[in-house]
């Protein structure tokens, strides 16, 4: 069965919510259900992805008024799972296990558990124990070490990364929901900003926020009767590798080298068909490697592509019209799906992409991730 995003919802994004992840998830989920014109009782599936930092779908569905739910799932992981969440919901609907599935991500990513920071003594089990003594256990450091390799092999520069940060920030200035909506950024400011882990400066890193986003996925039987125009899922791709941050064979490439060709093969579409792209951007370098892997740019050309205006309005493809995780806020990539739906409905106001009909949404960085293509026309 063809499936679609039929509803979207979110909370305010802030630096200190003062709320539980459960409360924020309920608000975003109820907003998404209302947006779709559905009743809470129409929802029979729910899923999320988390790092032990968020309420489980069983609690959230209960808290929003459902006494039971036919299918629910909580995957452990990060942005690499967002596309997979949508693809899995579609498969669950296809299999007849549920008719309307809520996907949410709710986190106090700024005031609570922060991915980029370890505050005190800790013990590290499992796959990261070997990196523990060097403290090489936080994403900014992993991704920076990969960016350095790209710089050495392809001659990409910090200014290239800066072009990505600046372009996305400019987009965020037209997004009233963006945490960085009042913080213009130019190259001088970018280059003068403090180092996190060379070659990353603070503006190469996502803006951590508290908040929640939810979307409703439904089959066409439900989608044809909802309040908003359905945003149809055209195809998905996914690749997950356990190679690790030191062991991955070539850090100048990410999961996109497989997820890119796979999604174009599955959909029969290509990069030039996309009107905009919500490119997963935990760091600027993630965008660089993803633009290459999904076929928008030759290796080493991404900085120039952004500098020449090809990644913004009036160019080849608008990249992250909402500002992305870098400038709208780090809701772990589900806000990319929210933005894609908003744009494909034509509801993005000041930042609306002209004639937005097809969009790529990517999710992931490093060895693992996936992507979805959405259309405003039923495939």
């Amino acid at each position, binding site marked *: 069965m063809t499936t679609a995003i039929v509803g979207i919802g979110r909370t305010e994004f802030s630096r200190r919510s003062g709320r539980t992840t459960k409360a924020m998830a309920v608000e975003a989920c109820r907003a998404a259900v209302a947006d779709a014109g559905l009743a809470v009782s129409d929802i029979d599936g729910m899923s999320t992805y988390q790092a032990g930092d968020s309420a489980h779908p069983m609690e959230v569905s209960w808290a929003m008024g459902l006494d039971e739910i036919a299918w629910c799932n909580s995957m452990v992981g990060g942005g690499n799972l967002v596309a997979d969440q949508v693809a899995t919901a579609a498969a669950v609907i296809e299999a007849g296990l549920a008719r309307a599935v809520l996907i949410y991500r709710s986190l106090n990513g700024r005031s609570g558990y922060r991915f980029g920071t370890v505050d005190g003594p800790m013990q590290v089990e499992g796959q990261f124990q070997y990196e523990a003594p060097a*403290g090489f256990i936080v994403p900014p450091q992993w991704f920076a070490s990969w960016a350095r390799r790209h710089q050495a092999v392809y001659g990409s520069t910090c200014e290239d990364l800066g072009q990505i940060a600046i372009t996305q920030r400019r987009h965020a200035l037209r997004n009233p929901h963006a945490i960085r909506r009042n913080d213009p950024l130019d190259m001088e400011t970018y280059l003068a900003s*403090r180092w*996190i882990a060379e070659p990353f400066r603070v503006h190469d890193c996502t803006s951590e926020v508290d908040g929640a986003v939810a979307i409703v996925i439904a089959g066409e039987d439900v989608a044809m009767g909802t309040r908003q125009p359905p945003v149809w899922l055209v195809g998905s791709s996914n690749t997950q590798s356990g190679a690790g941050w030191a062991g991955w064979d070539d850090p100048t490439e990410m999961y996109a080298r497989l997820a890119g060709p796979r999604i174009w093969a599955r959909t029969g579409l290509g990069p030039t068909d996309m009107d905009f792209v919500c490119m997963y951007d935990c760091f600027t370098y993630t965008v660089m490697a993803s633009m290459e892997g999904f076929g928008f740019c030759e290796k080493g050309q991404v900085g120039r592509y952004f500098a020449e205006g090809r990644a913004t309005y009036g160019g080849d493809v608008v990249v992250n019209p909402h500002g992305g995780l870098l400038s709208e806020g780090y809701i772990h990539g589900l806000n990319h799906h929210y933005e894609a739906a908003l744009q494909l409905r034509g509801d993005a106001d000041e930042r609306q992409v002209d004639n937005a009909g097809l969009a790529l949404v990517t999710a992931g960085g490093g060895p693992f991730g996936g992507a979805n293509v959405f259309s405003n026309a039923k495939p």
Partner: protein
Amino acid sequence: MKAATDGRPGDGADKASLSPPIPVPDADSEGYWAAARAGTLAICRCVECKTWMVPPLERCRYCNGRTAFEEVSGRGVIFSYIVVRHQAVPGHQVPYVVGIVELTEQAGLRLSGVIQADPAAVSIGAPVRATMVDVGTSGFRAPEFLLVP
């Protein structure tokens, strides 16, 4: 009183003096940490097909053969590196260098670790050798790397 560097809790200079994160050995890794405590860098190797592997595994991921820990030279080259300037994790005084080092024993066999060097002296491809250092006061020891002149 905490010396905050950018207004965030826990980011003060004293964070550098705290213990680094401590590994928790398991059945796959206890041989690695035991050798490290004895001052030896030992890497998991398949006794059948002789392939080295990081991280260690109970059985070889290529041929499912039995594995054992074997001492390596500790020599290699810097595959990539970062200069940590924001004190995100306790245990080392910023700025410090963390590198991904490819060991000479096998193409693609890589470890990460602190590189004890002036950041300006570090480059991709530079030869290094391992040295075993104490992990805070935990009793664990782990490899760090020195530039080979």
